[in-house]
């Protein structure tokens, strides 16, 4: 007789609409609430589905705060494995992709922005 042990994936759903109580995900305070939920669940190694059901409009400021910061405190591989989104609009997806790429670059070298000032002065 063979016995299979399977690690159960504990997945929780974070509903953006439920947390911000609005169909517009616009500002930093709203993003911070989502970030804190994800961060807390990550510390328990949970798998997370961030649901954007009923969210109609999203700004990059919201996404930067909710998702960008995760790359400061967690490894890229861990995030990729433990996090997914659902019901995100196409324009939201495009913005999120941009936010994620920016965060990966930024946290690799936070001092790079200083160089951008020099670049403008030399322009």
């Amino acid at each position: 007789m063979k016995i299979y042990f399977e690690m159960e994936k504990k997945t929780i759903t974070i509903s953006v609409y439920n947390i911000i109580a609005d169909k517009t995900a616009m500002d930093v305070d709203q993003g911070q609430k989502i970030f804190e939920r994800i961060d807390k669940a990550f510390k328990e190694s949970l798998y997370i589905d961030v649901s954007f059901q009923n969210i109609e409009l999203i700004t990059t400021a919201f996404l930067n705060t909710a998702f960008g910061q995760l790359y400061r405190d967690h490894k890229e591989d861990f995030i990729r494995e433990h996090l997914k989104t659902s019901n995100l609009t196409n324009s939201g997806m495009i913005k999120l992709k941009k936010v994620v790429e920016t965060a990966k670059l930024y946290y690799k070298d936070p001092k790079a922005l200083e160089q951008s000032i020099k670049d403008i002065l030399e322009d």
Partner: protein
Amino acid sequence: MRFSNISNDFNSYQQLITFYEENKDEFFLNIQLDINNFFCANVSAVLGAILDKLILNANNIHFRSIDDKIKEILKKNDFLSFYGYNSEVDIHNTTIKYKKILPTDGKYFVNYIEKELIDSNLSILPRMSKGIKEGIIEAIYEVFVNAQIHSQTKYIYSCGQFFPGSNELFFTLVDTGISIKNCVNKRFKSNLTSVQAIKWALVDRNTTKEHITGGIGLALLKDFIKNNRGLMQIISNDGYYSLDDGREVYKLFSGQFPGTVVTIKFKTDDKHHYSLKNEKDINFENIF
């Protein structure tokens, strides 16, 4: 002060800055205004912000003469309600109300935009595609959030106007906060000019935020305006930037605007499919 044509161009903003510079150190004055030529209603946000600065010095504002047609529009968009006039109903639905909003009141701003641009009978709505409508609203939110995060302003002033004949929607947001130049120089202990600071802020991923990413909103907005063949203007202190039909211009004003103005013109008959743009390049399964 007698204004000549006030529209959305460098010379019009220069007139407003000159008016501010001439009166900014005055106290207990009766400041007289004459608006008898063209006045583009969205610029109410800029004039309102300037007048509030002058009122802070206990000056009185008096509209000595206003052309009847301009008066009608400025009553319809509620601007003149702040200066002793009654409001008027806009039966043609081309105005977007003048508002003074606390930066902390994002929810109020969203309700205002929904009321003015989504739920209203604004005569542009039937002609706009879903993609462009969402793009316009998200663009306006990005500008508002920028002012909310960075400007340290007391109020954010906003106003818009729709021109059905040319299918153009103008929207202006103004803050009287620390300006882009001071924000960048404070963060990086640098000494950029206003124009250099605007240039820097428009570069993708540049942000003055610390320990957190940002700087995407304005760059995305620029792309959106380019595709839409619209117009985007930034006035901050003595710096001027415009992106008009794909062409970028930087200039210096004589005198300083006490904060930052962002004006956007959207072409509402645009047929681009914005929501699908770049979709093929994105691996939706592996976004993180």
